[in-house]
């Protein structure tokens, strides 16, 4: 993925050290000073000329700092804009790290949502039981980290209602979701309790189609698309951050919009 300008298996630091040893003293100093400049240049171009680990570490730290900034910016009472039916994007795009025909097929009849972590009642929920709970509908904008956006219509259970129903400890820091295909997501509790954060069972008033996450997705209009997991099979209330599929690869953890 990254451009490697150094032969694999060669430690850039040792290489420079060896090369510097071959030089007479003043030239060596000059060379090392040049190497420092080269390091700065590396930071600018993102190439692995000298050592990109330091730059990558710094960037990850700043991304963590940005998580805290976003948590501070997040207003639990601010609602994402809603739209009329006429604004719905048709067809609503399918998006995943696999193609549409590779999307998981979940059997609705045998489906059970597993509950774990800091909750009083860990009884799993069948699809029938979930469908029997009070539902809400929202027409909101789904914004992808890639930049595109699409407006969709989602109907389901308010997550905060469900957390209350199962006796979740809402003082915990996170809610963690796992999905049928191995996708996962950790979200912050304030977002989990946001009135528009939804356990979605329907898209455009119809049973959630397979391509949009049958039997259940978590719809979070205050977060980017990759923080809206589909094919959700388990929910855990937790105090430890268990990361997520994309977050672990370098995408911002908070992913707020």
């Amino acid at each position, binding site marked *: *993925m*990254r*451009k490697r300008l150094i032969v694999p298996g060669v430690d850039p630091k040792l290489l420079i050290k060896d090369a510097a040893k071959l030089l007479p003293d003043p030239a060596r100093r000059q060379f090392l000073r040049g190497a420092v400049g080269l390091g700065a240049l590396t930071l*600018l*171009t*993102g190439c692995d000329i000298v050592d990109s680990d330091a730059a990558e570490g*710094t*960037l*990850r730290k*700043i*991304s963590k700092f*940005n998580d805290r900034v976003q948590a501070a*910016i*997040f*207003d639990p009472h*601010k609602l*994402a*804009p809603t739209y009329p039916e006429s604004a719905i994007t048709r067809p609503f795009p399918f998006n995943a790290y696999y193609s549409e025909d590779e999307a998981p097929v979940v059997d609705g009849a045998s489906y059970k949502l597993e509950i774990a972590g800091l909750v009083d009642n860990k009884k799993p929920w069948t699809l029938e039981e979930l469908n029997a709970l009070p539902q809400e509908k929202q027409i909101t*904008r789904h*914004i*992808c*980290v*890639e*930049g*595109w*956006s699409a407006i969709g219509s989602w109907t389901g259970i308010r997550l905060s209602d469900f957390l209350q129903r199962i006796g979740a400890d809402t003082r915990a820091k996170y809610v963690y979701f796992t999905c049928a295909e191995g996708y996962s997501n950790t979200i912050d509790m304030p977002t989990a309790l946001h009135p528009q954060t939804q356990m979605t069972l329907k898209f455009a008033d119809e049973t959630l189609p397979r391509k949009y996450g049958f039997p259940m997705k978590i719809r979070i*209009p*205050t977060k980017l698309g990759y923080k809206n997991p589909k094919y959700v099979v388990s929910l855990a209330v937790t105090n430890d951050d268990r990361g997520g599929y*994309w977050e672990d*690869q*370098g*995408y*911002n953890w908070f992913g*707020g*919009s």
Partner: protein
Amino acid sequence: MAAGLASEIGSYHHCISDYPFVRLFAGDQPDDDNRELQRLIAMHTQTTSSSALTVRPTIAAPAIHPPWVRITHWINAIAMLVMIGSGWQIYNASPLFDFVFPRSITLGGWLAGALQWHFAAMWVLGINGFVYLMLGIATGRFRRKFFPIRVSDIFKDAFAALRGKLSHEDLSVYNAVQKVLYLGVILAGVVVVLSGLAIWKPVQFQELTAFFGGYDTARYVHFGAMAAIVGFLVIHIAVALLVPKSIRAMVTGR
């Protein structure tokens, strides 16, 4: 001789008020400026006779750009390059137009890497830009350097520039084309930051997003502001290379 000295004193007078700390803390009154001027002239005459005193006059010697302008300029240059390079990589993930930027000129390697660069450099760009704007207003530099702009001068100077006859003899005075370009790129910088915030936080800052015509339109505004800045950079760098002493002035101040 007398005219030469007068113009030199004039430029001394001009430049001393360019130092924000001198101006802000050593007095803003015309009387103070005059006293400052006399002190400078006295120092200037001493330099020739005593080498021991050379250090102090060099501190107060004429500078085309005060230190805060040079520092914020180069920090901005680096931050802009990072923002543009990573921004192009982010653009490629979902292009607005029928083209993508060649990967070799983008920054970050892939989308997540580019986003990390973009949301790290945004702090540098934003804070540095804010400091520059505040100092530019507070020191009066913007008012002195960019105004007045006369429409007739813009055409006259633009025509002269195209014929290669626009003088850059006195780097401390901006011609009308420079004034328009510098004010224009400052405006583009403000728009690029605000539209960036609008697409970063379309829920939390939804009023700002609505101001830019909604999320999708704000992306085009963000792109347009970037394109304006890149267009400025092409002219800016080309002209700087044609007048190399302008680069020296932005590095050393002279």
